[in-house]
């Protein structure tokens, strides 16, 4: 069984530039999550999807961040424009049910210079 796939693995951009991250969850997993992990911290939820519906986006900075999950499968997280403080690892996870264990992708390490 293929795991959660994320791309790119690494991204370096200048501040004020846009950036996008892509995630392909495990087949059949209806719940998809985007997390941000700062250095030395645990992951913090940005947005959670049930199929194509965003059911929890309270922690997503909506002035610059956007996400979509078309057709309830793949998802894209976008930042526009990026700021220095956005440097972090962006993790995507999926689960079979809203509660229970989550399966994480390898993450995208973003560096904003």
């Amino acid at each position: 069984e293929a795991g959660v796939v994320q791309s790119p693995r690494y991204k370096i951009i200048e501040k004020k530039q846009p950036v996008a991250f892509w995630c392909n969850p495990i087949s059949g997993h209806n719940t998809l999550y985007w997390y941000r992990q700062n250095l030395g911290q645990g992951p913090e939820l940005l947005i959670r999807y049930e199929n194509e519906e965003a059911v929890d986006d309270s922690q997503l900075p909506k002035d610059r961040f956007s996400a979509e999950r078309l057709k309830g499968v793949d998802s894209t997280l976008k930042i526009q424009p990026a700021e220095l403080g956005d440097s972090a690892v962006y993790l995507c996870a999926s689960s079979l049910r809203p509660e229970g264990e989550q399966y994480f992708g390898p993450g995208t390490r973003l560096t904003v210079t």
Partner: protein
Amino acid sequence: SQQGEEDPQALSIQEGENATMNCSYKTSINNLQWYRQNSGRGLVHLILIRSNEREKHSGRLRVTLDTSKKSSSLLITASRAADTASYFCATEQAGTALIFGKGTTLSVSS
């Protein structure tokens, strides 16, 4: 905001020794989960313990949960160099997503 808080922040042991990590949380939960993260990798689920359970085992892992003290512990027995990683506890309340702690960094030397 982070509900779970792991203790210690860092732990260094020799191969063959046991490693114990603790997690405290603030509000009532549905379940508590432990994850491992190797350097530069995503998180891997280790074990889930529900609020009505007190202890669970999985291989060399033993997790306890004390809801009256709002705390959990993760014991890794007979540690190996490959256990070197960061370990996170995460709590789940009804209808909400996981909230992770800051993690314990475990270093096992051979």
